[in-house]
């Protein structure tokens, strides 16, 4: 990689070579603003959070003690944290498969014909660019137990009318549904890119092999060819949904009874509500390790994709 900048250059005069050697000074000058901002905003805070996690520091306190792994031990008996982990996992396992499955179905449908492609793509993508907090309040109205249109429709067909965001049985499902709504468009666009990359000849070839129906062509060609895109979309959706915060903070504040408490909200609450910075930092590390784990899987998979290609 180091040779790229020099290769293919027809200019080999000594003057230029001198200029190349003089690169170091100017290179550091050009990277200096970014390096300073990186140190101040990313690297030092990252190291600080690592250190904080092993202290009992509380915001506003005069000092702190190093308490080793005590914060992590506390997590094991912390019922809010347990609920938080459980709900975050349920949320991810709800949002990821549904938003991926629906996105794939819609992408195949869009790709199957010429009419309305740009229109539908734009409609499904709309939630990605919409202010989450504002749209969450719109969902709050839609899901309102007594005046919401969803329950009004359910009443019309004589079905039960759950308190979608207010009952601990339904709240994660409701938030999960909003999460699916938010993520489908993003995944859809990734799938559309994957679908356009499939060579047309494969479909023609599958017809010769006797795949007549759309469904058998899907299983024979589309599904295996989408493999790499699929793995990628799974990880992206997981890392996006593990960071759920806005909808929870707007709609339920983790309630009722911790039934919708999620990881980022616990970090926020412990840190900026109870000011237990040490404990909050420890939970942050748990969050970071999970995200890094997902990223590790992703890089592994991308490596594999390169080998296949």
């Amino acid at each position, binding site marked *: 990689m*180091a040779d*790229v*900048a*020099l290769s293919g250059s027809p*200019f080999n005069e000594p003057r*230029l070579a001198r200029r*190349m050697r003089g*690169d170091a000074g*100017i*290179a*550091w000058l*050009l*990277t200096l*603003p*970014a390096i300073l*901002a*990186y140190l*101040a*905003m*990313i*690297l030092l*805070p990252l190291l*600080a*959070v690592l250190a*904080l996690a092993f202290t009992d520091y509380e915001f506003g306190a005069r000092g702190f003690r190093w308490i080793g792994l005590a914060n992590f031990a506390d997590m094991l008996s912390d019922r809010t944290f347990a609920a938080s982990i459980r709900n975050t996992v349920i949320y991810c396992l709800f949002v990821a498969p549904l938003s991926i499955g629906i996105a794939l179905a819609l992408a195949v*449908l869009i790709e199957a*014909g*010429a*009419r309305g492609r740009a229109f539908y*793509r*734009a409609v499904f*993508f*709309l939630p990605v*660019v*919409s*202010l*989450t907090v*504002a*749209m969450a*309040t*719109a969902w709050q*109205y839609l899901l*309102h137990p007594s005046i*919401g*249109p969803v*329950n*009004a429709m359910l009443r019309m067909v004589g079905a039960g009318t759950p308190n979608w965001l207010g009952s601990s049985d339904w709240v994660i499902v409701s938030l999960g549904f909003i999460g699916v*709504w938010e993520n489908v*468009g993003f995944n859809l*666009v990734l799938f559309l890119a994957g679908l356009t990359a499939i060579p047309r000849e494969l479909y023609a070839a599958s017809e010769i092999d006797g795949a007549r129906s759309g469904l058998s062509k899907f299983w024979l060609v589309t599904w295996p060819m989408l493999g790499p895109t699929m793995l990628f979309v799974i990880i992206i959706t997981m890392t996006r949904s593990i*960071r759920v*915060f806005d909808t929870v903070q*707007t709609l339920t504040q983790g309630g009722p009874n911790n039934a919708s408490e999620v990881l*980022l909200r616990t*970090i926020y609450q412990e*840190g*900026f509500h109870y000011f237990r910075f040490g404990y909050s930092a420890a939970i*942050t590390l748990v*969050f970071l390790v999970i995200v*890094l784990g997902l990223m590790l899987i992703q890089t592994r998979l991308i490596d594999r994709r390169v080998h296949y290609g």
Partner: protein
Amino acid sequence: MQTRPLISDLPRLALLSLAALVVLAPYIWMVAVSVKPQDEVFKASLSLIPQKWALIENYGKVLKTIPIWTYIVNGLIVCFGILFFQILFAIPAAYALAKLNFRGRELVFGFVMLGLLIPYQTTALPLYLGIHQLGLLNSYTALIAPFTCSVFAIFLFRQFFRAIPDDLINAARIDGMGELSIVWRVIVPNAVPAATAFAIFSVVAHWNDLFWPLIVIQKGNLYTPAMGILAFRSVEAGEDYGALMAAALLVTAPLVLAFLFAQRRFIEGITMTGLKG
């Protein structure tokens, strides 16, 4: 792809339209409720058109109770402030990483890759402490500064600059240009497509962000749009869904309109760069 006769295309269009209707439901109801008077909202009828229009009432209440334009302007200042510094810092660094040979380049790039793995929420606690120490809570600086170094922008621009032919840069050197003016006069004009894509990604991310503003801002006059909606709902509007939907619509509209005008660029920008999330 063959254009089928409309009649055989109908099942496909029907399915897509049904899904589209579900996706659009919150937008449709948001618009409808924002012009309904309160008593009609509470009747829970499924009619979208109000019997008595309350457009002026609802939007008037929003404008009267909260400084919504201030929130929107705050959102713009924060988003474009962040974007300005991100690009200002990223382009020279990315140029150096892509086109200059210097000892330590691999190390710097390694740190860029490390930064890509760290979600910004991870560093919130120490950043809050630092900003508190400096007495900068409740300021635009607190909202902007933590995001000024986008490793993602550096990474993206670096990939992009590597495709710029070396001959172009060497020709500029022979003409006697210094590296700084090469960045400004050769690289920046070539960076426009990558910068547009990144700009869309960055603005969408920060316009929608709630986590960080919630941490560093307590004063109402510095609220971002997302915080404004939260405050309006919890304190002033309560169950007044008409006014609440009006406020929600006003803060959602700017980005949605921009998206409708430049759909392709938005979709490209967010999915190309959105891999960072």
